[in-house]
């Protein structure tokens, strides 16, 4: 039996990859926005990452943003953001709804990293609920991490803070 173990392993492996399918998209952007605005999605707006906004964005991300503008959807005090940040090697897509300067809802829409996808679970994302941005650009809520998913946790934390900051800028512009 022992000598057939490699062959058996190979057969199981091949049968598995024969049924390969895409993983990691948990909710489409459309579904997220529909849910956020009860089916009546506002027109997309853009905020330019220039001047002080760019500086602060860089401070939050700890690297220069690769975009010049960020899209958002807003109605009155409510805004929705769909942002991506790389944890270790691949982007994690996150949808964030902010109302009156607090996170109302945060959801991992797509996870593409090899490890660390535990951050998509509700038990983790619930920690961001009602978080607001402190003057030092940190979240008002404590976010407990997940061992082995440190970089994914960090990516979510950064995007939550960035969305809150950009929402402040959006509000002040109006």
């Amino acid at each position, binding site marked *: 039996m022992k000598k057939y173990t490699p062959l058996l392993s190979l057969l199981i492996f091949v049968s598995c990859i024969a049924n390969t399918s895409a*993983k990691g998209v948990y909710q489409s952007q459309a579904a997220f926005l529909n849910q956020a605005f009860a089916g009546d999605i506002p027109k997309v707006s853009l905020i330019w990452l220039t001047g002080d906004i760019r500086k602060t964005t860089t401070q939050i991300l700890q690297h220069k943003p*690769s975009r010049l503008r960020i*899209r958002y959807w807003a109605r009155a005090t409510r805004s929705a953001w769909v942002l991506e940040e790389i944890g270790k090697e691949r982007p994690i897509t996150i*949808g964030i709804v902010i109302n009156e300067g607090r996170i109302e809802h945060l959801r991992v829409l797509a996870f593409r990293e090899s490890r660390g996808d535990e951050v998509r679970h509700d038990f983790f994302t619930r*920690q961001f609920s009602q978080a607001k941005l402190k003057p030092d650009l940190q979240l008002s809520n404590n976010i407990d991490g*997940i*061992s082995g998913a440190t970089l994914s946790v960090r990516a979510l934390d950064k995007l939550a803070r960035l969305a809150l900051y950009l929402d402040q800028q959006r509000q002040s512009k109006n």
Partner: protein
Amino acid sequence: MRKCTLTIMLAATFSLPTLALADNDSQQQEIEALKAQNKLIMERLDATAEMLESSSTGRTTDAAHNHSVAAGDSLRDRTFGNHGSKGATTIGGYGEMHYNNLGNKKIGGSDKKEIDFHRFILFMGHEFSDKIRFWSELEVEHAVIQDTPNGANGGEVAVEQAFLEFDLNADMAARAGIILVPVGLLNETHEPPTFYGVERNNVEKYIIPTTWREGGVSLTGRFANSFSYDLAVHSGLQISGNNYAVRGGRQGVSNAPANNLAATVRVNWIGVPGLVVGAAFQQQTNITQGMDANAGAANLVSAHVVWQISQFSLRSLYASWNLSGNGPAAVGADKQTGWYVEPSWKFTPKFGVFARSSQWDNQVNSATNTQYKQFDVGFNYWPHEDVVLKFDYQNQSVPNGKNEFDGINLGVGYQF
């Protein structure tokens, strides 16, 4: 003359509204022209921004605005110049340099005062499609690889990982190639900014021989919303009959004998934020690959917990080998065990302190004392989230006649 002046004044009075109207029309036309020009400039600016963003992120605007996919505004780009046929090749890396200033309590033993660029690692990955990708790590240890007449040198160039990963569904992926054995806390996540202590802990060196890589296939996935699992079938260790210590048995997937494979299974429970509880089991069908008739199968059992509450963290691990055969039993190496407990406190996101108590023994059943103990205390300072400066003090207690190193360690490390 008076008549003439009056005529001029009357003419001017009646023509003023006409002139004003003409000015208004002209201004309005100018405003409209400026508006059109401004619109054109904004359109061109948007087009330029889109081009820059798409060339930077490798994603077209159409895809980014397609609501049917989960595409967000990407904020970081690691595809350097869009390498590869689809611009999906990524690079990264990590490294660490250590300074050890350790006194040796062994009578006649040499102190250890050295500086060493211990690890320099380059990552490279490529995404063939959204379901199939490649990942690799190339490592240079101890900075210099020098050929010597007797073949002895201080360094190592090694492929630490090189595997293809296939997404099977939302909760499962398969890997094939050189994979890291899914056991312990450090073996898979060992970038210097992610752990305390200049040197890796000795339990995950001598009992779980990190960095432990084998050639094989694995399945990784999740179930019941809070469990993850790994199943791997891979090449086995080939330990020598001198002392049967497991660390010496790593073959590095370099023409490694594969007469006797090994299998590893690991399960983690991640049900609440900050807490990970896991266990792993490995079966080696023959831990000497049939080279030693006095040794045979072996198994490894390990368990770990990581608990983070606010600024407090606790990491703890236990690992134990059971080796069959008269050979290991004769030197007490039929059981090899280790554990550590490491509490830490992060005062700020940039500064944290830790303490660690550890014990390990590669000959538990030996008639003599073969147990090592070590206590470490120190701190990490992160001037940037991916850069760390480390300091620790270590105090060892070792078996008679063995090197006993006490002293300080300094380190710098990075990842990107």
